[in-house]
């Protein structure tokens, strides 16, 4: 904090200062040497892009770390924070320590500097000094330590000090190690290498900017210097570098090399193109003040295409338009002036000249934000937007999903949420290889591909519960599955393992079977006003890959559209998902959009209630044991009179008294006419026709 006081008068305790800046967009982290502040929230679950931490405000009497958002590189230093503090308190900001040097010289510096690539390096300043490298004085070393920087020697410390104070990263070369006493700012050439200060030998590529001497690279521009020209205790003459490097270039190089430094962090967010010479003079003055060296010759400044400052028109009325409250004109102007903006009065507001360090300010709204930050969000009123038009309808899928949830929770299923990515081995049974969508750089093998079905995740959750003493597990999930050809599909998945009936002392427990889950599917489709058909798969059909043949079905809408599948999970698939051996799991997956599309659009029309009594007849027939009940039913429906209201299978029996290849099927047929009471004669005639048809079609024998 004493460093901060070089620039602005602060008597308030660290905690209060942290609170002040927090309410202006600088999230305080740890405060050392002071009690924790009242507002240091942490641990957001990455709802938005992460910010970067920058140390600032080091001192001998307390240190506050602030997280600096990506748009504010100008505050990754003490001066930038001081500027915010001075604006917040309305106190003057001291000019940075005078850059007046003790030695003036009109002779040229003994160093040639050439920018060969002004796109990647628009400005490069340098100065030469004769030095005696030693230990920095304690006050300087302590400030560096407080900022988290290890003191090394006077020259390196001066460059670091200036970076932390003013935000301008600097570098120092051992001049006598530079061949030809020159610096060429150019792209690396094919095959060039550099041993950087951290001792790594790095291969350079043509899109990387290097600072080279006459023959070879001596530093990677804006990222790190080279070992060979490192300043050490034997160094007699140095060249200070103070430059502006293009942010995207530094970012790319730093990423490519996997090398993040304090310098690259500042350059890649955008340093101050106006700062290099001024910061260099500050460094020279500091070096001379601590007796570490003496500048030789003039400061070199290569700036081939000086950039004009950004100018923004700022209309006073837009403040109220965006904030919903007026901010006093003089207060708005004071805030901007203290933040370093130059204001010229205009008819409807101001013509604002943006200082070169505010790389984030390019348009009017940026200035509104500056005023809002310092006027205080807490001063804004709380109002409600006026509703000017009839609200638009919600996505109908939202309501459909809620209906599915109501039905399935009512049927005893708990809702699961599983990850959308799974192991590729787990996915392989659920879709052909060409349909599986892989992730380019997965976090791990467990998250390698997008799920082609909701079932693998659900089955894993069933296993998780089974291994934790849960006998009966009923789960469902509503979510998306992903396939290369179909893209993204919204489906509901179901899994049921364990008991089929409620466990109760009054009855023997029964294991879940196909008909339990078929009943749930029927109920679900019924709530969408659909009566689905259950159709046997062709051998090569998709569901056949993971369901037990003969205990699985494709679910079809009345018009033949496939809604999904239902059946018993094939034991080999179950085992690969870590299910206990011998656990039968029944699963189903339905396409929610297909379900909704097949739903009748028309309103329900009530049918009149029956006015005449019904007559029921039971019939038991012996049929081939492989004959599906559905075909028996179809035969009956085909020949029965219109008065047949309902066919209900009520028993299916094999065993004593039944030949081995036969089964006894019992059905209850209910007849009713809408206009009269049916006579026994009518029913007997209908039954005779039905029995005859069953004998003819299925060689059925009436019992």
């Amino acid at each position: 904090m004493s460093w901060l006081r070089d620039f602005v008068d602060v008597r308030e305790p660290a905690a209060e200062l942290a609170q002040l800046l927090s309410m202006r967009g600088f999230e305080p982290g740890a405060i050392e040497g002071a009690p924790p502040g009242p507002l240091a929230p942490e641990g957001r679950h990455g709802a938005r892009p992460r910010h970067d931490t920058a140390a600032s405000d080091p001192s001998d009497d307390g240190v506050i770390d602030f997280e600096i958002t990506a748009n504010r590189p100008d505050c990754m230093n003490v001066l930038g924070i001081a500027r915010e503090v001075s604006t917040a308190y309305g106190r003057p900001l001291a000019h940075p320590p005078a850059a007046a040097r003790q030695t003036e010289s009109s002779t040229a510096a003994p160093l040639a500097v050439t920018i060969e690539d002004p796109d990647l390096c628009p400005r490069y300043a340098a100065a030469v000094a004769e030095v005696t490298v030693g230990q920095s004085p304690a006050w300087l070393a302590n400030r560096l330590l407080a900022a988290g920087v290890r003191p090394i020697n006077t020259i390196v410390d001066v460059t670091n000090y200036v970076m932390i104070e003013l935000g301008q990263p600097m570098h120092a070369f051992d001049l006598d190690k530079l061949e030809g006493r020159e610096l060429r700012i150019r792209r690396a050439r094919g095959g060039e290498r550099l041993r950087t200060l951290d001792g790594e030998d790095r291969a350079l590529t043509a899109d990387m900017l290097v600072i080279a001497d006459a023959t070879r690279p001596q530093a990677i521009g804006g990222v790190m210097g080279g070992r060979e020209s490192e300043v050490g205790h034997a160094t007699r003459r140095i060249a200070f570098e103070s430059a502006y490097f293009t942010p995207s270039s530094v970012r790319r190089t730093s990423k490519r090399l996997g090398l993040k430094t304090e310098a690259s962090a500042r350059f890649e967010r955008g340093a101050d193109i106006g700062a290099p010479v001024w910061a260099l003079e500050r460094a020279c003055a500091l070096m001379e003040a601590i007796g570490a060296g003496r500048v030789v010759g003039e400061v070199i400044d290569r700036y081939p295409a000086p950039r004009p400052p950004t100018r923004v028109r700022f209309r006073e009325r837009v403040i109220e338009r965006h904030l919903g409250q007026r901010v006093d004109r003089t207060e708005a102007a004071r805030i901007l002036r203290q933040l370093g903006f130059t204001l010229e009065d205009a008819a409807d507001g101001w013509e604002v000249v943006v200082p070169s360090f505010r790389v984030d300010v390019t348009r009017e709204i940026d200035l509104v934000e500056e005023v809002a930050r310092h006027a205080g969000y807490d001063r804004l009123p709380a109002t409600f937007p006026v509703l000017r038009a009839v609200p638009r309808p919600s996505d109908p899928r939202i309501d459909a999903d809620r209906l599915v949830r109501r039905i399935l929770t009512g049927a005893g299923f708990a809702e699961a949420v599983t990850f959308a990515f799974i192991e590729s081995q787990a996915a392989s049974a659920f879709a052909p290889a060409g349909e599986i969508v892989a992730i380019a750089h997965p976090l791990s093998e467990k998250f390698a591909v997008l799920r082609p079905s909701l079932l693998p995740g659900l089955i894993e959750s069933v296993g998780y519960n089974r291994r934790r003493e849960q006998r009966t597990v009923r789960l469902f999930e509503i979510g998306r599955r992903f396939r290369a050809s179909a893209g993204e599909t919204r489906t509901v998945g179901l899994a049921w393992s364990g008991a089929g009936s409620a466990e109760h002392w009054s009855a023997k427990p029964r294991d879940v079977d196909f008909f339990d889950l078929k009943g749930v599917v029927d109920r679900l489709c019924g709530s969408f006003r659909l009566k689905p058909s259950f159709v046997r798969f062709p051998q090569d059909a998709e569901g056949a890959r993971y369901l037990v043949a003969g205990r699985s079905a494709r679910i079809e809408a009345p018009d033949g559209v496939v809604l999904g599948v239902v059946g018993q999970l094939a034991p080999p698939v179950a085992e690969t998902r870590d299910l206990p051996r011998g656990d039968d799991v029944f699963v189903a997956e339905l396409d929610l959009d297909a379900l909704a599309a097949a739903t009748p659009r028309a309103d329900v029309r009530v049918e009149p209630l029956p006015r005449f009594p019904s007559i029921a007849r039971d019939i038991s027939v012996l049929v081939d044991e492989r004959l599906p009940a559905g075909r028996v039913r179809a035969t009956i429906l085909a020949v029965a009179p219109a008065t047949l209201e309902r066919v209900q299978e009520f028993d299916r029996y094999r065993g004593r008294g039944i030949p081995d290849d036969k089964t006894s099927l019992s059905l209850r047929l209910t007849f009713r006419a809408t206009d009269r009471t049916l006579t026994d004669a009518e029913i007997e005639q209908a039954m005779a026709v039905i029995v005859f048809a069953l004998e003819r079609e299925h060689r059925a024998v009436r019992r």
Partner: protein
Amino acid sequence: MPHSVDPLRSAFADELQRVSSERELRALRDRYLGRKGGVVATLMKQIAAAPSGDRRLLGQLANEFKTDVERALAERQQALQDRLEPVEAVDITLPGRPIAQGRRHPLVILRDRLEDIFAELGYAVVEGPEIEDEYHNFEALNIAPDHPARDMQDTLYLNAPIDSRRGTAPPSERTRPQVDRAATLLRTHTSGMQIRYMEAHEPPIRIIAPGRVYRRDNLDLTHTPMFHQVEGLVVDESITMADLKGTLTHLLRELFGPDARALFRPTFFPYTEPSADVFVSCHACHGSGCPVCKRTGWLEILGCGMVHPAVFEAVGYDPERFGGFAFGIGIERLAMLKYGVDDIRMFYENDLRFLEQFPH
């Protein structure tokens, strides 16, 4: 003047004989033991008026009569009840037959709650694709090509682009062509729905867009590679930051109770300006500081801001004419705070012992 209670006794015995239901028994009790006009009460009154010589004996007889009536009534009552017990009584202490009842997932319970709160304010609830293109996820949201969020380190990209829009394209009411490209990534936020909805609709707009989002984060106590967000967007001619404050303060009071306070702190998002992090006063300590809020008194709940003019420009809205606000809420974080869950992974393990703690 009575000298004996015997006639009363025999009358009572006769009447008791004829009682065949509990209702009749109650009537009989009232007639004999009723405080006002009951046979016993009347008798006592008469005794009180009798010559003092007879009073003691008569009082004794009357009291005996009263006790006998009471006992007889009680016996009769029991007999009537016993007669009601059927021969095959059930053991009513055995457990009832359970009705299987599933549960909504806690994240869904909260999502539904958020949908309901905003539906009441006239917001439409919309959904969008989870696999997205870079245009909708980044570019149109003013997120520069070299922004760190677009890095392979943070975003999950697909191995090969796929067409995500099959059947999910929203109906458009605008003639302006919608930008449609093959999906190359898993959306990192629901903010892309701002773009998709504005491409297809004219202002005024009020929507929320709930859904799953993905980040390249490893699983730990507070991070997962997949989580849930609810995005909000309001666009109209005179939307202000004060409207944003009013709306979100209402939301926090709906979620955390009428005493909840909201704090708006400046921050940075590329697609809103000005932007704010929103905090709610800690519901555990009411702002005085506790372990839940890490002694700050505040809990960070969501991010929000005024729609950046560059976003309006991307969808062809005139930023001079329209203003808007947007917000994004992380449902997991909200659920952890509201339900006291300290390990985010519990939401994805689907342990029935966890899920069944949520009552509906």
